[in-house]
Structures are given as structure tokens and as C-alpha cells.
């Protein structure tokens, strides 16, 4: 089971995660990351890993 954690204090609202995996990440009205799912669906796991790699402020973490 793959989960993804987002540190909303560290997020700088670059939006790269939404570009990489918009089924898993969104931005709230202030642009801060919101994780949409408890568990990352099978087909989204590569996208999520990409989002973690792309996050400029290292706000995302995958927990297997």
C-alpha cells in the first residue's frame, strides 16, 4: 500500500505536483498542496514518485 504525505508548512505552491499527478494532488485556495487520496491507486504510483522528485521544496514524501 502506497501513501503520500505532504508537509503543508513547507509547500511553496509551485504546482509541480498537480502537473505530475492531478488525480492525487490539488491546491487549496491559497495554493497549498492538498492530498486527495488516502491510498495512491496502482496506476498513479509512478506519477506520484515523479511529483515527489519534482517538488522544489521537498514537501512530499512517499510512505510504502
Amino acid at each position, binding site marked *: 500500500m502506497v501513501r503520500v504525505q505532504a508537509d503543508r508548512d513547507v509547500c511553496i505552491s*509551485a504546482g509541480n505536483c498537480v502537473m*505530475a499527478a492531478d488525480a492525487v494532488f490539488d491546491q487549496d*485556495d491559497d495554493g497549498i498542496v492538498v492530498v486527495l487520496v488516502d491510498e495512491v491507486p496502482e496506476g498513479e504510483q509512478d506519477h506520484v514518485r515523479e511529483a515527489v522528485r519534482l517538488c*522544489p521544496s521537498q514537501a512530499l514524501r512517499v510512505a510504502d
Partner: protein
Amino acid sequence: MTQAPELPPLHMRRDAFNPTPELRKIRETDGVRTVTNAFGMKVFLVTRHEDIKDVLSDHQRFSNTRPPGFVVPGAPNVPEEEQTSARAGNLLGLDPPEHQRLRRMLTAEFTIRRMKRLEPRIVEIVEAQLDAMEKAGPPADLVASFALPIPSLVICELLGVPYDDRDDFQRRSARQLDLSIPMAERLKLVRRGREYMGSLVERARQQPGEDILGMLVREHGTELTDDELIGVAGLLLLAGHETTSNMLGLGTLALLRHPDQLAAVRDDPGAIGPAVEEMLRWLSIVHSAIPRITTTDVEVAGVPIPAGQLVFVSLPSGNRDPDFIDSPEVLDIRRGAPGHLAFGHGVHHCLGAPLARMEMRIAFPALLRRFPTLELAEDFEDVAFRSFHFIYGLRSLEVTW
């Protein structure tokens, strides 16, 4: 008297689309080397993709603030009070937590959703410029008639600049970052720009509109000083103006030199998203991120850098690092180049990236569809690249259709 150097500093040197081969040499050998910047100061230049990411994400050891007494050689003596007020609101001169405080006030204006709401207005601005070009007929200078006005009008819209002021505003903004203009004159322009921003801030304080300044006054008016509001507005202007416009000019030229890729951007609606990312990587118009200062003794790529030294990261070099991407010298719009450093990395990652992407995704296909036979009206060898400038680009681009 200081004499202008014949060549720009090493980190700014390019041959048309390509960074100077000397950058590759540094990347393949030492990784980090000391060079001289535009003001004659010694700086450590970082050239590898991974090292650049490390530097940019470590704001504790690589700081954006300047220690007391830090002066740029040749800068006129500006009273301490004026310096302090000029620094206020400049996110690029701040470290966390002060940086985060200001950035958080602005992020709501640059969310992806917010950009989608802005999309129809950007389409209108682009179509109006294309109408004007079509009406005037070929040939045209694509920089003056397309690449410059579009981002400028979009940022005017965001900042609430009245229509009557827009010509002056565009002229002033274009010159502030031009390193071939003497520093005293540039500082004068910066001062005039600040005065103008001050008038916008005053208006927003009295009658906050729907633009960014109005939003900041309504939501955060008591937390922000006028100097901070002026600083934020000035930064958004410079950042939004120079960068996207040079991407539009240089990007169009890059596509004209790669006709099959141009055809894909023109004819396939799915091509533009990845194409914009690859053009951002391949062109890397920002030579270097804002110089960092080491707060302690550090080591990058095994090279010791003492505390208090200036560190430049070469974005074009990092974006053409074969350890980051295969065949880095090739423009291949299909690959999308995720992980490129054109918008920087770390807490200062470009705030306006979603806006820049939106503008480019609209503007390139719109241009190529309006003028499907677009071509250069001058020899490629004669194209005026603009090298002695903080941001790489074109002075002009003669096209016909």
C-alpha cells in the same frame, strides 16, 4: 573609469541557442570553478544538475540575504534608509521564515485554478496582438509586436496598471535589467519605477480593485508596509515581463529552426504542454539563479567554498547535464523534460511558473496557427541575440508570412 568587457562574464556566454562550451568543460571536470561576474566580483560557479539542486534547496547554508556592509563594486552610494526601503518586499532577497511570510500572501494569485480563470483574458490579449500584426502586414519584428507586449499586458492586467500608463510602463521595465545601460542610469529607472508603483499602491490603499495589489490590501493590508507592497509589485513586474517575453521570442526562433517540431506545435494540440517544458530546458534563458552567499564553510562537488562567498548556479549548464537527461544538446519537444531547472528549485522556485506556462501554451500555437507560413525574414546569422543582460533573449526578430 571602468571599461565594459568585450565578452559577457563566462556564465552568460552563449553561441546562439547554446551555452558556451567552457561551461561544459567545467561541468565535466571540476564541477565548480571561480569566475568573475558582471561587476568584477569573484564568484563560485556551480554547473552540475544535482549540485545546483542541492545549493538551491539549502537556504540555510546558501542564503539570499546579504550580510551588512555587502556592496557591489561600482554601485553609487545609496543612503542606508533608501536601501532598506528598496529591499522591502523583494522576495528574492529574503530567506525563510520572512520569505515564506510574504510568499504565502501571493500564492493564492498564482494557483493553477486561478490561472485557468485568467485563460480567456490571455487568449484575448494574444488574439489582439495577432490581429494587429495581421493588419499591419509582413514583415514584422516579432519581439516588438508579439513577444514583448503579451507578457507585459498580462502583468499590467494582474497589477491593475491603467491602459493610459501601459506604454511608459513597458518602456521603463524593458530597460531596467539591461546590463549594457550604465548602472547610474539603471538605478534612475529603478527609482522612477518605484515612484510609479508607489502611485499604484496609494490608489489600491484608497480603492482596492480586483487586481493583485487590491487583493493584498484587502487581505493583508495591515500586515504590509507600502514599501513591501511596492517591492512585491516591482518584483512581479520584472519577473513577469522579461522572462516570458524572451521565451516567446527565442522559442519561436527555435521552432523556426526545427520545422518538424514547429509543425507539431501548430497542428497537434497535445504537443504544446511538453514542448513548453522542453523549450524552457533547452533555452534556459535565466543564466543564473539569484546569487547565494555561503553562511558557513561548505563543499560543493568536492570544492571547498569558504563562508561569505558568492555562489552562482548555471541553469543552462544544469539543464544540459547528461546525468540529468539523455542527448541534452538536442531539442526534442516530445519528451517534456520533467525536472528541468529553468524555474529554479527550492523555496524561491518561480512563483509565476503557472502563469508563464499558461501564456506560452496559449501564445505559441496561436501565433503558428494564425501565420502557418511564418518564416525568418533575415539570415539566421544576422539575428540579434541579446547577451549582455540578466536574461538571455533576442533584441529583435524579423519574420514574414
